[in-house]
């Protein structure tokens, strides 16, 4: 985007919208951007977003809670992994392409190398009895973790008696999980219906 304009003012990047009103906010350098995302990715087991909020809002004071929520809403709106979107958008706003690259490499570089190492170990040793035993336990626990995530997300729909939204969730669940229909087909039907319901209910 306007990367050229950014590079001329590297010391004073364009402040995020509310920075002027919050003089105690810190504007990270490119290196700090990399390190911040590196830190949350390496401490983020089972999802990184909760760590991102604490690190960026409380520890490093890069943004206010409102700014974080705003940014997060945008990331949920966009397709693709939320935290990846967050790294790109925050990086772009500060330093253009270089900012996005610093944040993204910090976020994905180290764990991708780890994953490749783990994948190689699995391909080579995965069938050894010792590994099989350990993986049987790990897989059963991972299933419990995913069920907990699913229940935590579904809970508000049940508690607030959002029956139409609950119906959308149940039909999607049945089509994908039970009938194992193709995701593209299911989303092409369910997303327009669900968005239309949301539009109709807005007031």
């Amino acid at each position, binding site marked *: 985007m306007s990367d050229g304009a950014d590079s001329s003012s590297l010391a004073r990047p364009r402040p995020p919208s509310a920075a002027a009103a919050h003089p105690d906010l810190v504007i990270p350098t490119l290196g700090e951007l990399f390190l911040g995302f590196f830190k949350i990715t390496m401490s*983020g*087991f089972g999802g*990184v977003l909760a760590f991102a909020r604490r690190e960026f809002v409380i520890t490093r004071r890069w943004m206010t809670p409102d700014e974080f929520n705003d940014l997060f809403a945008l990331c*949920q*709106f*966009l*397709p*693709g*992994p939320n935290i*990846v*979107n967050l790294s*790109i*958008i925050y990086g*772009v*706003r500060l330093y253009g392409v270089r900012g996005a690259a610093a944040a*993204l490499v910090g976020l994905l570089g180290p*764990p*991708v190398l780890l*994953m490749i190492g*783990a*994948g190689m170990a*699995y*391909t080579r040793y*995965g069938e050894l009895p010792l590994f099989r*035993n*350990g*993986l*049987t*336990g*790990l*897989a*059963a*626990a*991972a*299933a*419990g*973790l*995913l069920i*907990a995530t*699913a*229940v*935590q*997300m579904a809970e508000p*729909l049940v508690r607030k008696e959002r029956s139409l*939204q*609950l119906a*959308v*969730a149940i039909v999607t*669940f049945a089509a*994908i*999980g039970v009938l*194992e229909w193709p995701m*593209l087909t299911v989303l092409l039907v*369910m*997303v327009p219906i*669900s*968005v*239309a319901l*949301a539009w109709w209910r*807005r007031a």
Partner: protein
Amino acid sequence: MKGEIETLVALALLFTLLSFLSVGGAISAMPEIHRQAVDLHHWMSDREFVDLVAIAQAAPGPNVLFVTLIGQHVAGVPGALVATVFMCGPACVVAFFIARAFDRFRDRPWRAAIQAGLVPVSIGLICATALIIARSANHDWKTFAVTAATFAVTYWTRISPLYALGAATAVGLAGLL
């Protein structure tokens, strides 16, 4: 060699599609990856798929990186890179170009409607993910007990799930499952 290239192209196509379809995070795409990798392309067995998901859950980093493991298992290091780049790349490009335009449509009602409409769909998808993984990981009462215990710890306590994953792995290594 030709087969390898074809596999990499198939991985690239699958993950490009999923980069746009994974509403509410990468976990939503897990059932579709399972359908394609296990049932359609026969790249791996059901058990291998669940193993890889479990390893990714126990490793640091964003959830999306379980696609790196899938790609690695299917086509080695090139597969890992192709899966990662094509799962994250298209979404990154969209994010890059929308980042500064968002202020213009932030307060439009259709923006809120789209966002609200995606929530129940993504909840359904994540429930489907939980079902598919639980079905494959539980083959007797002992593994089911481990799943139930991990759910209880994660849902009702503030103990880090990492301890539950570690304990379950230890129980497995001891040959108890």
